């Protein structure tokens, strides 16, 4: 049997072991250098190394120690990401329906959506905080701003590019405009919409955390992972910073896994469309 057969499981496991080995190795090198070069005691060397590179077990310990703050922050970030994502998907698709039904509207409004998309969210975030105050709504709004463009761009493309032959079929069936939209244009645009949704889903946790750095707040337990990052930096809790990164990574995986699952469930029956849109 060839090694190829084990690749999907074995290779990530091997690479994990390799990375852990390098991680511990570098940690121990730093400690050694502190002891031999700078004359630190063993204990001081460990403390010094910890603020540069906490080891995996220390990161796990930090997750346990900070669990109350971290889990509350994770919940807040997750809620903001989900809310912003749902808004991006529903509002984005509705707008693209409007664009598809009116060329005039598309020509008038599309440039402004581009302007909104081209303005860095990092600059928009403080403005939003000033306008509506910090908190969940502001963070969700920033997530929405990051995610809605890919949904609009892709869905509009799908709604507009509906197969001419299928449109002819509906024409000879004397289908009403509403039937054409419901039974042809909307299902036809699904692969496009779902591609936009995948991009929005990937961006959502990033948007929520970035937004939280600017508009997060510790009042009434509203802090998200972005706010916690700032807080851990200012109190030099470096292992907790690594712990925050770990939690953020898990949230990212949940989102990407979720949207990929929806994408697959929605399209698994018409195979070739998955092949057409998957990159």
């Amino acid at each position, binding site marked *: 049997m060839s090694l190829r057969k084990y690749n999907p499981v074995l290779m990530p496991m091997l690479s994990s072991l390799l990375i852990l080995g390098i991680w511990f190795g570098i940690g121990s090198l730093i400690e050694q250098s502190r002891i031999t070069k700078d004359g630190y005691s063993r204990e001081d060397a460990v403390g010094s190394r910890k603020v540069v590179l906490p080891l995996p077990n220390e990161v796990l310990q930090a997750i346990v120690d900070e669990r109350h703050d971290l889990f509350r922050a994770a919940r807040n970030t997750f809620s903001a990401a989900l809310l912003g994502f749902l808004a991006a998907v529903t509002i984005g698709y509705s707008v693209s329906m409007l664009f598809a039904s009116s060329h005039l509207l598309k020509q008038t409004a599309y440039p402004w959506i581009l302007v909104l998309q081209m303005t860095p969210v990092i600059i928009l975030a403080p403005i939003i905080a000033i306008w509506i105050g910090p908190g969940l709504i502001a963070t969700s709004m920033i997530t929405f701003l990051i995610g809605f463009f890919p949904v609009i761009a892709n869905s509009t493309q799908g709604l507009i590019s509906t197969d001419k032959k299928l449109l*002819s*079929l509906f024409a000879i*069936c004397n289908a009403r405009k509403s039937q054409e939209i419901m*039974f042809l244009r909307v*299902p036809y645009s*699904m692969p496009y919409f779902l591609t936009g949704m995948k991009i929005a889903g990937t961006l959502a946790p990033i948007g929520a955390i970035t937004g939280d750095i600017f508009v997060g707040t510790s009042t009434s337990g509203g802090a998200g992972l972005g706010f916690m990052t700032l807080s851990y930096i200012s109190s030099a809790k470096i292992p907790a910073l690594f712990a925050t990164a770990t939690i953020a990574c898990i949230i990212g995986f949940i989102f990407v896994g979720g949207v990929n699952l929806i994408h697959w469930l929605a399209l698994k029956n018409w195979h070739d469309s998955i092949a057409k849109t998957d990159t």
Partner: protein
Amino acid sequence: MPSQVSAKSAFVQIQSLGMSFENGSPVLEDINLDIEEDEFVTLIGPSGCGKSTLLRILSGLISSYRGSVTLSGRNPSDAGEDSFSVFQDPTLLPWLRVQANVELPLKLKGVPKEQRQKKANEMIELVGLEDAKRKFPWQLSGGMAMRVSIARALTTSPKILLMDEPFGALDEMKRDRLNEDLLTIRNKDPFTCFYVTHSVAEALFLSTKVVVLSTNPGRIETIIEVPFSYPRQAALRERPEFLELLAKTTHALRARNQT
């Protein structure tokens, strides 16, 4: 032009039909054709002779033509109930199973679910696809997909079926088989058929009338009456009188295309 049609006029009547592209170049010119009910008319001719355009006019998809076209006394765009088209491609909705694809025209008409299921089942049986009902279009071969397309057209019980090179993409064996099946289906439940093809043999096997079109602009060159009676069997293709007519028609087409 008078919109009233006298009782004597033909089932499908085309009078001095002309049509030009938007840039002014003519596609069809001075087409006159009277077709009786349940005739099988094949349109044949070189590429660009406007056969597909003529079919699209009959289906009501093009309305910017000159002259008059009536299907049982009505304009093509008002005769939607009476006619249905089968395109070059199967044109199936990829997200619907075979059953739902066949039901689609009835669904769009608002026919109740039970009724349209029954009708679709009959038609699926007629084209021999009972085992493929639950399949999606991507799981079908080219010939099967075309059968679905035909079943879909037949659910509306059209008086006129418009077929634009429906079997052009299939190999000869499959095409012959589908030609025979098409005639069998038509024997059970007759309809008038307009059929576009490039194959003289296919045209002669299927039709009562072969309309030969010339190109630039498309005009009727000649109309060949096919004398063989229905039902026609596969063996007809090997009969001497069929082969003789085939040779004659092919020569006529070649001679005209060389000039």
